[in-house]
């Protein structure tokens, strides 16, 4: 969580200094969700993060270096500069690379989990998406498909109160989005998405259960987008009171408090960790910056996979 926070903070600064091309979309305030889920996963599990899920990438072992390479469009990055900012993944870490179309990754991860299980693994999936994405047809088709086909995917709905400028009151009219689960014959829960420790324990039980039962589940995590939709957006449409309320529930502050109180770590441990994170971010940024941009001569290469490419 902390490493993700520090990375995003740096990306935000770089964006406002005009040093990031494209855009920056931050998940600040939502870090508990990716952390609690990846910490409960096994190597064979699959993930489809969206734009606010840096903790999923980091939780699965992606390096901060690769993340800066990606944002800086370097040839060395996960997409080699062919795609930008949040559109990266790493299949060897079980992380799919998103497309922008909201909802469109949900059937993909369902298919991916089907494949892994047919090939003999006990893989389960974690699919992340927002309150806005819950209005797309793909959300519906994917949840129903997963249910009918008995595919164990945790549909992690990050309800952060807004889809771009649109508040949840104009996005849906059910009480909670978790209420949709019954319509798919799956279990649905609404939980506090800013309580990392509580979420960790909850997902621990949940993931064991669905791995065993091979059933999907809808997990609505209540949280808040603490920045604009992207850094170009001043989010003046968000009431200050809402931001204040959620800044009192900052997932990192809360987690540290719980862990310190429980005697798991000390304040000093935390400061030391923070220092390391900042250093790692610094180092990674500087290194990525020094690396080359993609060579325009490669533009038309790799549109099609060559025959004989290993398909396994």
């Amino acid at each position, binding site marked *: 969580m902390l490493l993700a926070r520090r990375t995003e903070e740096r990306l935000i600064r770089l964006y406002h200094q005009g040093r990031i091309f*494209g855009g920056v979309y931050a998940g600040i305030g939502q870090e508990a969700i990716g952390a609690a889920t990846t910490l409960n996963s096994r190597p064979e599990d699959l993930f489809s993060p969206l734009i606010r899920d840096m903790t999923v990438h980091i939780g699965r072992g992606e390096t901060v270096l690769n993340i800066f390479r990606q944002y800086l469009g370097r*040839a060395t990055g996960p997409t080699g500069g*062919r795609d*930008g900012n949040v*559109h990266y993944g790493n299949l060897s870490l079980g992380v799919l690379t998103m497309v922008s179309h909201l909802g469109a990754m949900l059937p993909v991860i369902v298919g991916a989990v089907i494949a892994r299980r047919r090939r003999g693994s006990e893989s389960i999936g974690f699919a992340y998406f927002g309150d806005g994405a819950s209005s797309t047809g*793909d959300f519906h088709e994917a949840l129903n498909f997963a249910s009918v086909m008995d595919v164990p995917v945790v549909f992690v709905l990050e309800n952060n109160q807004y*889809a771009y400028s649109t508040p949840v009151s*104009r996005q849906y009219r059910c009480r909670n989005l978790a209420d949709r689960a019954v319509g798919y014959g799956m279990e649905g829960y609404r939980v506090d998405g800013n309580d990392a420790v509580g979420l960790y324990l909850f997902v621990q039980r949940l993931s064991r259960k669905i791995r065993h039962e091979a059933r999907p589940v809808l997990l609505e995590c209540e949280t808040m987008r603490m920045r604009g939709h992207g850094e170009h957006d001043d989010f003046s449409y968000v009431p200050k009171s809402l931001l204040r309320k959620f800044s009192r529930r900052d997932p990192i502050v809360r987690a540290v408090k719980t862990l310190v109180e429980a005697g798991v770590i000390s304040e000093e441990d935390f400061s030391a960790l923070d220092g390391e994170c900042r250093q790692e971010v610094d180092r990674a940024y500087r290194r990525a910056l020094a690396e080359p941009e993609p060579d*325009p001569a490669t533009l038309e290469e790799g549109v099609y996979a060559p025959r004989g490419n290993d398909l396994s």
Partner: protein
Amino acid sequence: MRREEMTYLEAIRDGLRHALRDDPRVVVFGEDVGRFGGAFKLTAGLQEEFGEERVFDTPVSESAILGGAVGMGLCGLLPVAELQFVDFGMTAFHQILANAGTTYYRTANPVPITVRAPCGGGFGGGPFHSEDLEALFSHVPGVKVVYPAFPSDARGLIYSAIFDPNPVIFLENKYLYRRVKQLLSEQFEPEDLGAARVCRDGDDAVVITYGAMVHEALQAADELTAEQGYDVMVLDLRTLKPYDRDAVLAAAAATNRVMVVHEAWRTCGYGAEIVAFVAEQVFHLLDAPPVRVTAPDVPIPFAPSLEAAYRPSVGKIKRELLNLIEY
């Protein structure tokens, strides 16, 4: 007559405002278009001016937006639906192809809807925020496709699109939104759909194009005149379906050398249609093979170095024009 300078984006907003003022049946909707004014702030101020009944936000549901527009159009409104990016319209292409495109032919009930869709790249949008999909829309029977290059056209054409009794896909170029300005008369004039316009005269060759590439073509032509003394005509199609056949043929006949330029992919791109049409119709008038200058068949890359190589540039157009003229 007073004149104001307007960007391409402001001109579209002004066209919307005129339509909203002139006819209570006009409604404007889409994701974030209301109080927020849309992802590009194009509709900024319209909800304030016309109220939430006329200008409203929707959930993230492209099929509900497009299908909903068809229903509204059938039952007495003049809906203007915004796709936040044209790319996302592909989640509901069937609403265009089936409901919008065929209903008048099958039932004689008009479907007077307008779908606004920001298109095109050149700003680091990557593969899913930079597409130009005019070839797909133009293949659909029963819809019209418009793609303006100038503020004055954009303003007049959006207005005419709204009052046209057919489904009109109104493609807007994001690269032009704030880059192109024009002095527009305060007195508003609609612009007829369907007519192309010669926006630069010349007789050594013609570049047939639309959208952002009109500006690149104009610059290429100006530079060629300055550097080599050649005079290249630039024909801005403005409406892509149905397109202005007479203007295309006249331009080919006047120059005997034809180039089509677009930012979209090459294979089965819009340029293929124009080149094929010219080859079929006025083959004997051509002094050189027609030429397409387009993006390659590659997902739109993010990195500036790659995107610069991807997008047709003034330099590339000039080089190809020289080849064409000196063939």
